[in-house]
Every structure is written in C-alpha cells, then in structure tokens.
C-alpha cells in the first residue's frame, strides 16, 4: 500500500519559524541523521548507477572501469533495446489513457455527490491501495487467464469457441495496470477538482446551456488540472512498473523495468542495466518537463481573463 491519505507536501512548507541565534547550527544538528540516511540509502546509490553507466562490461560478467559512452552506444545502437523503450512508452501511454477514462467518472461523481455514502464510496475507491499489487495482479491472472473468469463465462454462454488471449500479452498488462493505478488517479483527481463549484454548472444550465455544453465549457476545463496531475502520476508509475508486466506479461512483455532487473540479476551485465536506468530517468525528466509546460498553459488559460478584468 502507498500511504493512505498521507498529508500533503505543502504541510512541510508551513513555516512556524522560530528566529533564534545560531539556528543554522541547530538546523544542521537536527538534519544530520536524516541527511546521512538519504546520502547512504538514496543519493550515493543513484550516483553509483550513473557511474556504472559509463563502465563497460567485459567477458564473463566482469566490469571494465572506464569513463566511456560505449555502453550507451551499444544499447542505443540496438534495435532490441529501442523496441523495449518503445514498448515501455507505448504501455505507459495506453495505461494512462485507459486509467484516466475509467477514473474520471468516478472522481467526478465523488467530488460532486452530497450523498451520505460519500465517505464509504471514497473508501471503497481507495481500498485497493491497502492490498499489495502482487495480490491484485494475482486476481487479474484469475480473471484474464485462458481458464479465467472472462473466458469461462464467454465460452459458457457460447459466445466464443476459442478463449480470448487476454493474458501473456500487452492487452492483459494494460487491463490489469489500469485497475492497479485507478485508485491513485481517483485520489489525484478528487484533490485537483477543488475549483469545481456546482453553482457554476447550475448557472450555465439556467442560462440555457445544454448538458454537453455545460460539460465541455464548464466542468471539463475546471477539472483539467486534476486530470493532468493524475496523468503525470499514472504515466510515471506505469513507466517503472515491474510486477504487473512480469506476472501478466508471462515473460512475453518486455519493458525497461523487467529488462533492468534481468540485466542486473540474470545476465549480470550491470553497465547495461545502469544505462537502461539512466534512460528511464531521462524519459521521466522529459515527462515532467512536458507536464510543467502543460500546467503553465492551463494556468494561463485560467488566470488570463481574470487578470485582464482586474
């Protein structure tokens, strides 16, 4: 599970600062254990990956300590690795689109409802976070397999003769991943839907706007920032997902995450694993830059007219 209802990042930046002499020294003393922990468990290991990526692998699992881009050249010069990168991005895009489509109605409903059941329904929507993704992926294996729920039902009803191929391929991974990331998307959307005021919909409708116009001109623009945040979160999570591609893919779906693991532990080619990791981080960087651009464009569209008026 991933921190149910964890406090927002902004809680940290609420400064109740005490101005005292020598507070810089105090701060250093208080920060020391945390900084040591981060250096040892996170910063140094990451630097080591970057260092490893400029090494070269020699014969029989040995590593030549070099500073060269030979391993990068080897990876980027191979059609196989480009396929893996392509499939990783393809999976990320497919999962993100599917997750947004299925999460949006639920988030919209939860954000607008005045039902007494709202608390329960929110809890139900995030319950899956309490259950490890290994267990949920296992559930999807029972649903999507050749002997699974879907195929048994469809053959039982006489709708199909051959079982549909829903597992051990990209289709299955997309279906299962969509469900795995749905609670994250719903949570991100609900918290991003703050601007959604029912009065606005009411006003638009009473001025004669048909429902699809109200949705297109009022609801959708107001909820776009929340959708954008959810998109970033899901895309980033699915880019680095390992468990679901491994289990549902059944060794037939190759993405950067599964390949990094195999190169590091089976092939023992650490330089290649490190290069793949650096490439994954690079994709992350691109995604975050695109997200920030999109956020700026959205914000300009929201605040522009208001600033012009004032």
């Amino acid at each position, binding site marked *: 599970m991933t921190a149910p209802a964890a406090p927002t990042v902004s809680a*940290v930046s*609420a400064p109740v600062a005490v101005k005292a002499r020598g507070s810089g020294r105090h701060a250093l003393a208080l920060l020391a254990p945390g900084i040591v922990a981060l250096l040892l468990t996170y910063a140094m*290991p990451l630097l080591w990956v970057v260092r490893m990526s400029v090494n070269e692998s020699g014969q029989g699992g040995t590593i030549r300590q070099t500073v060269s881009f030979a391993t990068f050249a080897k990876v980027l010069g191979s059609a196989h690795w480009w396929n893996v990168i392509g499939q990783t991005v393809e999976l990320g895009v497919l999962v993100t689109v599917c997750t947004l489509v299925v999460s949006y109605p639920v988030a919209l409903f939860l954000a607008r409802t005045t039902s007494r059941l709202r608390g329960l329904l929110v809890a139900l929507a995030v319950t899956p976070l309490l259950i490890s993704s290994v267990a949920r*992926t296992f559930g999807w*294996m029972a649903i999507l397999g050749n002997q699974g729920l879907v195929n048994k039902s469809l053959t039982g009803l006489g709708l199909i003769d051959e079982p549909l191929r829903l597992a051990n391929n990209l289709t299955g991974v997309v279906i299962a991943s969509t469900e795995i990331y749905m609670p994250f998307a719903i949570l991100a959307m609900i918290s991003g839907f*703050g601007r959604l005021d029912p009065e606005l919909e009411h006003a638009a409708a009473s001025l004669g706007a048909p429902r699809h116009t109200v949705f297109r001109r009022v609801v959708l623009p107001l909820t776009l920032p929340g959708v954008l945040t959810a998109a970033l979160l899901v895309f980033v999570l699915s880019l680095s997902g390992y468990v679901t591609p491994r289990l549902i893919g059944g060794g037939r779906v190759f993405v*950067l995450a599964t390949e990094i693991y195999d190169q590091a532990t089976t092939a023992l080619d650490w330089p290649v694993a490190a290069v793949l990791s650096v490439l994954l981080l690079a994709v992350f960087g691109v995604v975050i830059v695109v997200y920030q651009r999109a956020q700026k464009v959205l914000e300009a569209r929201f605040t522009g007219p208001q600033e012009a008026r004032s």
Partner: protein
Amino acid sequence: MTGHPGVRAPWRTRLGQVLWGAVLVALYLFLLAPILVVLVESFDNATYLRFPPEGFTFDAYRQVFGNAAFRTGIQVSAVTAAATALLALVAGVPAALALTRLRFRGRAAVEAAFLSPLLVPHIVLGLALLLILAPIPLTDTYPGLIVAHLGVTVPYVVRTVSAALASADPRAEEAARTLGASGFTAFRRITLPVIRPGLFSGGVIAFLLSFDETVISLFVSGQNTVPLPVAVLQYVEYRSDPSVASLSVLLVLLSVVVVVAVERGIGLRRSLRSG
C-alpha cells in the same frame, strides 16, 4: 467541495441518471474485481488457479502456514519493517523539526531533497542499492534490506511528522523555555505529547511500506532473507494456487486491523485530551 444540498443541475434527466449510475457501478466493479476474485478464490479446493471455484474449503488457509517460504517471509518482512520504521523515525523526526521550526539558508532545497526519493522509480533505486550493497557485501542480509527500505520511508515520516508539527503551537514551547525549561525538556514535555499521534502514524506508514516493498527488495534479497512480497512473487511466477489468495486475504485483514487500531488509538487519545 460539494456542500450544496438541494442544488441539482436541471440538465440531469432521469434517463441520464440511470445511465450514469450504471456506468459508476460498472467502474466500481472493475476496480474491486481482483479483490473479490482473490477473496472467493481463497476458499477454493483446487490445486491450481481457476474461476469460478467448484468447492469450498479452508485448505488454502492451512497451506499458507504450511509453506516455509511464506512463514520465513513473514518473519523477514516483520523484522525488516520494524527496524526500518524505527530508523526512519530517528532520521525523519529531527529533520521534520528543523524544516518546520527553524529558518535557515537552503531550507527549500533541503526540503525538496528530503521528498525527492518519492520521484525516483523503485526499479532504479533497487538497481542502485544492489550496485552499492553487493560489493560490501550487504545483499541478502537484514542490514542490507533495512538500508534499502530506509530511503523510501524517510520521506513519508518527514511528511507525516511535519504535518503534526504544523498543528502544534511553538509558543507553548517558548513559554516553557522562558519559565526555565531547557530546549530538550520543553520539547519533550510540551511538543512531543502533542505530536505523538503524528509520530505513531508516521511509524506505522513506514512499517506498512517496508512490509509491502517488493521491487527494491527483489534486488537486494538473496536466498537467506526473502521478504514476504518477494516470496509471493517468486511463488506466483512458477505456480499459482489458492494459497496465494488466502495469504492476500490474511494480509488485508492484518493491515485493516493495524489501520483501525491506529485510528482508534489516536482518536481515543485525542478525545481524552479535549475532554
């Protein structure tokens, strides 16, 4: 967010409402499908994965406790998670204190640094920790697992404890200090009791995250220390039978109990304080 009872957009026709309701029910079913399947499957008497089940039995639950890999997995995960939670508190609580209470140069940068592990994919962190722990050699040991889990749990502790500190009034502590208490005594007697629920939930979150951590553990565990999620993953990769479903159900029950206990524990203490 809503809070406008009685305001109902007139464009929501009856047919629209029925369709909308059907869509929502379908989406909830999709969301909860794997959990429902796991729950039903955990009582099946088959020795392989099938659906729907054809018999009802508790055998799969018995198998969980008969499986040595699961038993040791639970032990490894519990020890690792407890140690990780403790160390995460040791590292995270003072940091949260500095970040919320003190003004110093580079505060924003330090804060960003403390939250940054959340942005790095676990698959990359797992590789990174393998590369650094293998030569020492700390892979396949408890210390290695604990170090590996520490980086990803400290940010959550910093967040939870900072949130708790933000609600504690620093002036109470100042008052104690003007009355002669040392800085540490003032913190221990005044602020600590107020933020204790925050510390507790930070520790519990760190414990649950570590207990459930799969991908990073996959890299740094070996044959001697296999945490539970890794044991389950390895089991499912080669065979699938209802015992995995039963184990999942047991774990869900466990985390529900922990969450409810925390909620009640804090709620109870809070109500005592306000009364």
